[in-house]
């Protein structure tokens, strides 16, 4: 692609192609004045080509949810938001696609080792103009392709300059287009706090990616970024949002600052942290910065570098899956990180989901009487989720509950029956831990849907050899049972 080759060449030494491009603090209309060579080629490229490049560059960002805010439509405006979020389609890898997820530009001044957009990588570059991107968002939105926009960007020239351009897109959408759909914007680490405030008043959700689970890894793999530079804006967003909530309580019509809260993302498997460390960090982030979500992204090798896993390393999808399960336990099941993992057992069990694993190690607390026990305890029973727990809580006020009732309520008895008592059922009797463990084996691992997980990744190193196909389900089940028996 001749055009982008030009663009890249200008950036080879890692400096912005034209010095006049860095205009003071990067604020004010001057920031939108003359375009650099790189940018000009990017700008005059066909929109279709840009979209393809800038979507491809954004695809490793996992957060694509449109949740957290309810906003009805309004006469003369376009769009609304639905708090649970709406998935508009699912990509071939099975992920929900809800937002127009693109980068403003992938021309980057930084050189993060794990990133396809780093300046030393040879790849096509492009940049949207704010007008183009706003128009594209509206046209996609009208056709119901998307819930809104997820805008992120590589660091073009400087963090401030980049943020200015992003803000411009949001201003066009919220202003002239009167767009009431969802907007998720990524703040650029190192940007002026005033810009963060401005973008927060336009976006529904803000995120700052923590990128890697520890300071040391960040230093090693993202030399241009600093942990403080990431945590500072996170703190700023949390504080501003809290102030804003107080303001809104007094003045109902005060503009809302990031009403859907903030989220973050970290890469798993590019650096050596244990699951326990990652989960502790996650819990800390929820508590300290009142994050709405922490996303995990299994590292997919995109660059050859001795500090990173080799290019043929499979992404640790099972590990990512377990992290999300544990994250649910933190957010919806009232677990703490220390209950799920510990310094002695710092990594997830490949065969058991974290909740079953906890239950197996606390058999002394079971069985519980579902007609009487606390809601918190209901949540801890394998096979009972928040929804069925809530249903049980309501239903038991209006009548007695037997196994059949529980099944109809949505309890997975295959798992739950080892842990409960109810009307006409006096519990499982005395069972060995291995028997129970066998019944709790993560069925997902052996079903076609998630078998992919075991194909790509098996922490126990048992399911598959590096290049061999997955074992047939039955054999894999036997293997798993043997492994569990050994561990119990």
């Amino acid at each position, binding site marked *: 692609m001749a055009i982008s080759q030009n663009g890249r060449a200008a950036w080879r030494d890692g400096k912005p192609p034209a010095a006049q491009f860095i205009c003071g603090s990067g604020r004010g209309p001057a920031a939108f004045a003359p375009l650099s060579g790189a940018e000009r080629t990017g700008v005059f490229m066909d929109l279709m080509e840009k979209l*393809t490049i800038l*979507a491809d560059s954004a695809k490793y960002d996992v957060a694509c949810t449109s949740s957290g805010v309810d906003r009805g439509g309004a006469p003369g405006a376009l769009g609304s938001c*639905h708090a649970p979020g*709406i*998935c508009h389609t*699912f990509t071939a890898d099975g992920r929900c696609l809800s937002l127009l997820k693109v980068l403003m530009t992938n021309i980057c001044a930084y050189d993060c080792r794990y990133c396809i957009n780093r300046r030393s990588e040879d790849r096509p570059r492009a940049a949207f103009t704010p007008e183009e991107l706003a128009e594209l968002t509206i046209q996609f939105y009208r*056709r*119901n*392709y998307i819930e809104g926009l997820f805008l992120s960007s590589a660091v073009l020239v400087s963090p401030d300059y980049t943020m200015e351009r992003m803000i411009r897109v949001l201003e066009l959408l919220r202003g002239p287009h009167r767009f009431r759909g969802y907007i998720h914007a990524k703040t650029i680490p190192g940007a002026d706090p005033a810009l963060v405030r401005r973008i927060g008043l336009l976006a529904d959700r803000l995120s700052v990616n923590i990128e890697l689970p520890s300071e040391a890894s960040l230093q090693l793999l993202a030399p241009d970024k600093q942990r403080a530079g990431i945590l500072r804006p996170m703190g700023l967003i949390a504080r501003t949002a809290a102030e804003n909530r107080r303001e809104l309580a007094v003045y109902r019509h005060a503009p809302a600052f990031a009403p859907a809260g903030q989220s973050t993302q970290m890469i798993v498997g590019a650096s050596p942290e244990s699951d326990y460390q990652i989960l502790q960090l996650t819990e800390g982030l929820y508590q300290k910065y009142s994050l709405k979500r922490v996303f995990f992204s299994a590292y997919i090798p995109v660059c050859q570098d001795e500090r990173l896993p080799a290019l043929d390393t499979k992404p640790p999808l099972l590990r990512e899956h377990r992290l999300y399960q544990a994250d649910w336990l933190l957010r919806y099941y009232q677990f703490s990180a220390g209950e799920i993992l510990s310094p002695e057992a710092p990594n997830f069990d490949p065969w058991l989901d974290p909740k079953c694993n906890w239950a197996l190690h606390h058999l002394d607390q079971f069985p519980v009487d579902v007609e009487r026990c606390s809601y918190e305890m209901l949540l801890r029973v394998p096979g009972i989720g928040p929804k069925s727990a809530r*249903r049980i809580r309501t239903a038991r006020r209006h009548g007695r509950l037997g196994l059949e009732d529980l099944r109809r309520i949505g309890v997975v008895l295959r798992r739950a029956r080892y842990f409960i008592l109810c009307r006409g059922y006096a519990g499982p009797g005395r069972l060995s831990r291995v028997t129970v463990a066998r019944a709790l084996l993560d069925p997902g691992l052996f079903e076609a849907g998630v078998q992919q997980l075991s194909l790509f990744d098996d922490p126990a190193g048992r399911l598959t050899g590096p290049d061999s196909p997955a074992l047939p389900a039955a054999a894999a089940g036997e293997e798993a049972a043997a492994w569990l028996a050994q561990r119990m």
Partner: protein
Amino acid sequence: MACAADVVYQYDGSFEGFLSCVFESFLRKEIPFALYPDRAVRPTLFPVRVIPTNPARAARVFDSFEKKLGTRTRDLVTRAFLNDSPDKELILLRFLHFAYGQGPRAPWMQGHERVAPVLELEKAVNGEAHLLTGFVRFEQRGGALGAVIQPRHFVLPLLRRHFCNRYPGEDFVIWDKNHQAVLAVRQGRAEYLELAANPDLPPPDPEEARFQAMWQSFYDALAIPARLNPTLRRTHCPKRYWACMTELRDQL
């Protein structure tokens, strides 16, 4: 107490018609063997009683839902009726006989054999409506937006609420091909039409193809090859929706 009767009710398939059946069933203190809408009459060994739709009776039944059974039951029954399963009428009728005995607490007895199946019906309708709020694809045709859907359940009324709210300034049409019904919204006024034949839609606007192509390449660009998982995609987005989805119909 109503007892099981060896009779089949036949009605016109409308909600009013169903409420008339409910009236009939309470009047005679019987629960029929089955209730069939006209369009789905099956040969049966039992005598068929045709229940004419009676708006006055239907209104009486409907009013009594709220008065005697509470708003939750009223909404539950209304919503569950949109389900297309062949035994929905019987499930609803059996539930109603149970509910008039229990009063407003009936829908909260979620594990009960008369209640759980109704909640299932409702869940399926809500679930499909929610999926479709995302999966509907509009095309710009002759200045208005047009979409085709092929849902299992009759979710148009639920989609109306969603899209009228979302696109207050747009005229749009959603054609439910499976139920031969159209929702047309012009200048904020919605109307439903039942169709005998396929509607004539104006041809797509010239710029339509460009946006569809862009959407397609955006969609393709976003998949991560190292994570390919077609089964997972089908679980979340079942193939029966693909025919009406711009980015997926070519992959069928």
